[in-house]
């Protein structure tokens, strides 16, 4: 074959795609928002839909200073490499002015360098990795276009210690625990925090830590070890394939109470997905979670959501709310700053403060920690993270997380903190009380 032909083919391909996609940049009188996330997952869809509804409302109110807001989307397929390509697509081909992300931690970490390169203001609604906030602490100017409106994992652990003190130690009388964690960075981080804080503050001793491989098929030996350890309960840290652990726990009817972090139990589909084998599981959850009583504004959002979308998830996950309120804040800041130019927009976004009230009290709050602002309990800063409140009575910000309990009849309620609780912490029926 003529080598010239071969090489021409390669070049022709390059050119044809270039010409094909060249007509996609936007007109001067629109503002483009890019959604990045996985189209096939409940997580991604929640953020996407929250963004869509927010944009509808904003356009109905006149858009951004008269300009119409257009949403474009890029699928990450929950793959890191695809995520980077998706961000590049949004930035270079679509030339978006703002990015709203419903990505998982790994994928966000992947495109973060691109965000820095393109300097596009980005709001992350699900990723809660403290490492990203740490980057904002050590190098604010480079990363300042990033905002994360879900509380970081660290804040989660602090609340858990309170839960341990008040419910597990005081109410249940438990003194010993065994930690069962996945061998991921998330598992290690939560384990570290719990081990260091739970014993001194709540008086609960960690007897043992069992680390399992995320591809584990059979958890019965792990549960046997846990039962043998003599602990009063199991503290579970599972974010990857967490359904396997919890469903085996239920199917095996492990004779030991279990609580902790179980990412699979955060959405209403948990019951349907587990075929009902999900009762007795409790977990930490960002808010608003399942079973969480919501304020009127959030309820109005849910109503619009359910009228518009008929397939799963039928109720938005917490990141859907984050996307809805967060996007509106981003545009409110843009209006005040005259656009998305970082110099004016970043401080404007930092000043955004939305308090959602229920029965006259502060119920939820969407605001951001400013750089240098110290959180009293941990003594550190969390620039551009949502302004969570981890000291009772949780009246200056929303709590970072709540504890959700699934019951064996399929209902889910919030059981901690007391301000938001509408149910009681319960031990599965097959576990005998000590």
């Amino acid at each position, binding site marked *: *074959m*003529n*080598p*010239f*032909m*071969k*090489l*021409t*083919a*390669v*070049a022709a*391909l*390059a*050119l*044809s*795609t*270039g*010409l*094909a*996609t*060249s007509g*996609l*940049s936007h007109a001067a009188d629109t503002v483009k928002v890019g959604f990045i996330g996985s*189209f*096939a997952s409940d997580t991604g869809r929640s953020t996407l839909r929250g963004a869509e509804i927010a944009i509808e409302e904003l356009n109905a109110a006149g858009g951004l200073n008269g300009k119409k807001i257009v949403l474009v*989307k*890029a*699928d990450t*397929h929950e*793959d*890191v*490499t695809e995520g*980077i*390509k998706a961000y*590049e*697509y949004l930035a*270079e*081909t*679509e030339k978006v002015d703002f990015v709203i992300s419903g990505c998982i*931690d*790994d994928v966000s*970490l*992947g495109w*973060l*360098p*691109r965000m*820095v*390169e393109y300097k596009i203001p980005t709001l992350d609604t699900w990723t809660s*990795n403290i*490492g*990203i906030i740490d*980057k904002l602490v050590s190098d604010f100017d480079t990363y300042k276009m990033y905002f994360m409106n879900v509380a970081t994992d660290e804040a989660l652990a602090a609340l858990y210690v309170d839960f341990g003190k008040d419910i597990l130690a005081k109410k249940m009388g438990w003194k010993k625990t065994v930690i069962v964690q996945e*061998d*991921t*960075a*998330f598992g*290690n981080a939560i384990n570290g925090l719990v081990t260091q804080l739970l014993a001194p503050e709540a008086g609960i001793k960690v007897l043992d830590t069992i680390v399992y*491989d995320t591809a584990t098929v059979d958890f019965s030996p792990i549960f046997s070890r846990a039962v043998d350890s003599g602990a009063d309960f199991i503290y579970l840290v599972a974010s990857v394939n967490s359904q396997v652990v919890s469903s085996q726990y239920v199917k095996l009817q492990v004779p030991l109470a279990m609580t902790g972090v179980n990412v699979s139990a955060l959405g209403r589909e948990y019951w349907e997905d587990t075929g009902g084998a999900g009762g007795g599981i409790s977990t930490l959850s960002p808010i608003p979670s399942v079973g969480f009583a919501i304020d009127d504004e959030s309820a109005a959002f849910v109503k619009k959501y359910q009228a518009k979308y008929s397939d799963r998830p039928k109720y938005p996950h917490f990141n859907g709310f984050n996307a809805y309120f967060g996007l509106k804040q981003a545009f409110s800041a843009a209006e005040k700053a005259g656009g998305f130019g970082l110099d004016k927009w970043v401080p404007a976004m930092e000043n955004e403060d939305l308090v959602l009230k229920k029965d006259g009290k502060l119920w939820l709050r969407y605001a951001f920690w400013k750089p240098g602002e110290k959180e009293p309990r941990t003594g550190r800063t969390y620039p551009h993270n949502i302004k969570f409140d981890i000291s009772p009575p949780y009246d200056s910000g929303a709590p970072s997380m709540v504890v959700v309990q699934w019951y064996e009849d399929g209902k889910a309620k919030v059981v901690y903190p007391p301000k938001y609780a509408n149910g009681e912490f319960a031990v599965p029926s097959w576990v005998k009380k000590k």
Partner: protein
Amino acid sequence: MGGMITQKSLIAWIVAWIAFAVFMLLLPQYVESGTLRLIISANFVAIFAMSWDFLSGKTGYISFGHPFLIGIGAYATAILNYRFHVPIGYSIPLAVVFTLVGGIVYFLPALRIKGTYFALVTLAFMELMYQFTQVIRPDLTGGTRGISGVQTMLVGARPNYYFTFLLMFGIAIVLWLLSRTRAGTALDAIAMNEEAVSGSGLSTTKLKLFAFLVSATVAGIGGAFYVHYQGSIAPRAIFEIDFVFKIIVSALIGGASTIVGPMLGAFFMSFLFDYLRPFLPGTERFFLFGVAALLLYVYQPKGIYQIVADLISGLRAKFAGEAGNGKAA
């Protein structure tokens, strides 16, 4: 592409390479930066596919775990540069050295087994690396989350485009020249009949080692520059079946054991995939893309290279009225 090379076809090749280079270097004037980004991705896949092809396409030792080598290069430079602040000018060459060592390890099973069994061992190697990077010294490797914020070498679509194109082009030329040496043509023979080659007095072990080391060098270079382009690294992003799939399918659909084939395949696959993005943003795209790849492969396992070659020789036969004389080169 060994065997007799006539003066005429060699000139034809050189002209083609030069024309190609000129065309690609002028391209940024005519296309959007989004497309340039696409081509950058394709350039990297092409480098990895050529690395795979030089080993598996030529010798017939199918590597199902090529990310093992690529990952060593990538992680080595990432750790040296990010954790130990070794400048890129040193960390990249060092990474290639590490990959060469990895290449020797990768080669050892080939002394005893081949074919499917070898392929499975390489897959196991990759799986082991996946576990190791998460469990061993996560303070260096970043564990399951990897490292985000690795120093990028160049910023912006155009500079990266020129650089990665020249890198790929350079590698392609070098591999092309290597395949024309005696060692290169002997490698082609090994894939067809290893016994005959060793019978003719050549050391198949030395030849195989040669292929492995060349493949590892390219993989190491590609992996190292790749991580300094992506700006991040994670076990999930590198040691996964999808990556293996991408590399192998690119090489095979383009046309294995040719240098141009993997390049062609990488570009074709990248364009096919991203071309569909504006029309089918979601999951359908992955499905259709996979089906297209499967149909194409099953239709002609020798790849686009062969499809076009058959087309051309068919046309020749029609117009010249004589039997096509096969591949011109």
